[in-house]
């Protein structure tokens, strides 16, 4: 039984179609990467899965209910401390023991030592970890991450993905968007390729490599990113 399922989702902004009948299904503990160039519809699809935006067509189901959402830009209060942010959202989530939940998230993010620091003084990577931890406070079966690694240096990225991988091991379904094809290939067990609101591919990284080789043979011997661009070109994008 899928943890979250979207069927033939359509979203329009005025006359522009941002999503054209996109479908997606993710099982428990699965890590799905949504990839595609800028303007492909990645954030729009995640917003619809998160329930922030309403689709103009199609259907979204999440049988277990709770879907955690982590926006691309850290959605937290920069003038509060790490602990105050976590405690506030734990209270807003209605946790019976918000202090215990805060301790749990401080442990998970590895920021226990920096709990009393004002968030504005933390690095972008650490802010993103708190951002994700806040998303986890709703104890979601599915966690949606919108381009979580944007603006982070390689070391911060590595720590972030290590953290995200641990979530998957805990049984949380993770769906993340990225425009970095190598990142998607490395951390996503399944890939959904979007371009101009259209789903071009849904399958494993190996399956995508095979599709690229088949549809853009002239670029098959080059690096995967170049081959992927050639694949998009062949598909008219």
């Amino acid at each position, binding site marked *: 039984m899928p943890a979250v399922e979207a069927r033939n989702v359509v979203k329009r902004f005025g006359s522009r179609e941002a999503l054209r009948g996109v479908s997606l299904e993710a099982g428990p503990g699965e890590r799905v990467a949504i990839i595609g160039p800028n303007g492909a519809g990645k954030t729009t699809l995640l*917003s619809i899965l*998160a*329930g*922030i*935006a309403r689709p103009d067509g199609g259907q979204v189901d999440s049988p277990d209910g709770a879907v955690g*959402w982590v*926006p691309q*830009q*850290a*959605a*937290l*209060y*920069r*003038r*509060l401390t790490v602990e*105050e942010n976590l405690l*506030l*959202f734990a*209270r*807003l*989530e*209605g946790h019976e023991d918000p202090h215990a939940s805060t301790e749990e998230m401080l442990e998970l993010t590895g920021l226990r030592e920096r709990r009393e620091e*004002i968030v504005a003084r933390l690095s972008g990577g650490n802010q993103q970890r708190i951002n994700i931890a*806040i998303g986890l406070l709703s104890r979601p079966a599915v966690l949606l991450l919108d381009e979580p690694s944007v603006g982070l240096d390689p070391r911060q990225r590595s720590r972030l993905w290590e953290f995200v991988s641990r979530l998957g091991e805990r049984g949380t379904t993770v769906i993340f968007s990225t425009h970095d094809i190598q990142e998607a290939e490395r951390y996503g067990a399944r890939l959904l390729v979007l371009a101009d609101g259209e789903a071009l591919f849904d399958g494993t990284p190996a399956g995508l490599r095979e599709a690229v080789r088949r549809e853009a043979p002239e670029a098959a011997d080059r690096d995967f990113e170049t081959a992927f661009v050639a694949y998009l070109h062949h598909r008219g994008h």
Partner: protein
Amino acid sequence: MRGVRWLLLKDLQILRRSPLQAVLLVLYPILIAVLVGFAISRGPEDPRVAFLNEVPPDTRISVGGGQLPKANVKDRICHRVECVFVDNREEAEERVESGDVLAALVLPSDLVNKINSLSTLTPGVPEVEVLVNEENAVKAELVDDRITTLLAQANLAIARRIGQEGSRYLDLIVNGGNFDILGQRIHILGMDATAQILIAVTPALPKQLRPSLEEVTKFATQARDNLDVAKPLIARLAQPIAVDKVVVGGASPPLEIFAIAVAATLTLAFVVVLLVAGSLALEREENAFPRLTRGLVSNTGLLAEKILLGIAVGLVVTLLMLIGMRFFVPLELDRIGLWLAAILAGAAALGAAGAALGAAAREVRAVSLLAFMVTLPIAFLSLVPSGAVSPAAFDAIRYLTALFPFKPALQAITAALDEAGPGIGGPLLHLAALFVVYAAIARLALRRFSAV
């Protein structure tokens, strides 16, 4: 509404973490209170005017051969302005040119002689000289007004003295008495005694002479009766038109109470509107708005929390200001229940207006500027009194200011501070209506602008 409590706590924590903002919120009302307090506890300073009196010391104004008592023109003038006595015209000119004094008033040596000539066949034109420096139009207007007023008062004082002397002579003619002239005392019989003598001697006269004497007696009696009427007429000559001020509407409290109400309302308006609009926009700026409204707190709950924040901070700051004002003006503390009602209603309506502004903006800086640009002109327009502009313009201002909570908040706070003004019920109802309207607008704006 569980989330409202935690969000309120969070906003107060953020406020505490912004020392500049917190200090401004406390310092601003104290500054306003001190400024207004000083302004209303000290009267305006008298303008400095150079005064040159060239009239010889013992010269007196004469009426009908007699001299009027000294009019003390110098004292009268120097009671209204700060006199700087100068010795000559050059010094007077120098002080005016240098800006040391606002103007110079010169009483020429022939002034009294020319006044005395007014009761002769060759009357002169008594003149005083005023030296002014008109480099500043406002200053020139002020000098003109002050000098015109002073001369009108001097003329009035002289006319009253002349009137008093005239009445005294008339009294002598009617009732009789002694009159001193050129060192000699003359007894005046008077019309009253004349009529009595004539009536007494009439029976002793031959019959053919009696009708003529009765005519004279009748004239003396009529003259006595009618000249009595002339006395009040002479008294009115000095001030033919009297002022009888009747307040027919718009009963108002003392000026200092109104000034305090204006200061308190300005403080309340700026603190509440800026805080509510800014803190709502901050939710967007921090990207927290979609996260909060994804089930953690409803749009209505978020608006309620921001308005509550504005009410709480506005109440504390305005009360602090009013308590500060008590050092300057005795405010009635037993009306504190009405103070609270006015401040709470004003803060709620202003908070709802701030929420409507904040709901439509995404940046704190932009919304702060917008809130300032809306609040300041509305506050100024709310203070425009009737008659200061054309009736059509005043009607437009009245309708415009009725749409924003500043004016009803000012009316409510004025009524709460002093019982002399209009009642508090009307403004409170007005504020309640505006609260409902602005809260609805804010709710719509939040839904409209939060849609993805």
